[in-house]
């Protein structure tokens, strides 16, 4: 079962709202390679795994991804706080705003809502681990792209942290067959 702790894994302290950035970063919330996708992938795959080490790894990384899902939500919450109507219209954020106001809802930057079709749980240890390694690289690339697009250091800091986590996760997913 899950325990929640009332703190973010890494601080998010954004001083300047930015609807344009929010439109992009939301892909790491509800997009194909985002944190929700990662979390549900790993937490669903763990049941078919035959080794305790792999069940542990998928549980632990899947749980950490929920904390990252929370961090992205915090980033979006702070980026869209106290926006003026002019900013909402000028940034193109109005298409999200009309359906969600400044509520947090998992969609990709394209507006496509989150779907389980973004991940697979194939019930085969080799296949699932391979999927997981690919997922971590895709997430890392998405963070690279966000760093290419975002200048605000308050945003870059937690994004940098999240990106580094994907690299560590990739290494861990590659290791299980040697873990005895």
């Amino acid at each position, binding site marked *: 079962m899950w325990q929640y*702790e009332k703190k973010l894994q890494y*601080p998010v302290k*954004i*001083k300047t709202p930015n609807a344009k950035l929010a439109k992009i970063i939301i892909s790491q919330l509800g997009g194909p390679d985002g944190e929700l996708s990662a979390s549900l992938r790993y937490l669903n795959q763990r049941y078919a795994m035959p080794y305790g080490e792999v069940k542990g*790894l998928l549980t632990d990384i899947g749980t950490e991804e929920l904390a990252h899902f929370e961090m992205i939500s915090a980033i979006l919450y702070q980026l869209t706080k106290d926006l003026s109507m002019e900013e909402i219209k000028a940034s193109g954020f109005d298409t999200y705003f009309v359906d969600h106001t400044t509520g947090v809802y998992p969609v990709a930057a394209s507006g496509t809502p989150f779907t389980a079709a973004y991940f697979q749980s194939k019930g085969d240890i080799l296949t699932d681990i391979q999927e997981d390694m690919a997922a971590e690289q895709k997430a890392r690339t998405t963070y690279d792209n966000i760093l290419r697009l975002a200048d605000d250091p308050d945003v870059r800091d937690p994004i940098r942290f999240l990106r580094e986590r994907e690299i560590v996760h990739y290494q861990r997913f590659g290791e299980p067959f040697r873990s005895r």
Partner: protein
Amino acid sequence: MNERNMLLSRIKKYDFTLKELNLYLDTHPNCRRALAMFRKYKELRSDAVEEFTKRFGPITPEQVSDTQNWTWVEDPWPWERR
């Protein structure tokens, strides 16, 4: 940074080290050095959490010790900028 934030930062630091060791140990379950470091940080964390919750309230609902108020629901919540 005020005292509450400083103490919470310390807990985040310890929790992160513990998380990294957790993942490392999942794939290196016999690594004694990682296990030793884990034990050390577990203790540091436990002390920091005890101090924090005594002075500033719960991090989990089970930690509520106030007998008059359900302090769990109090602001701020983690996604709000404090």
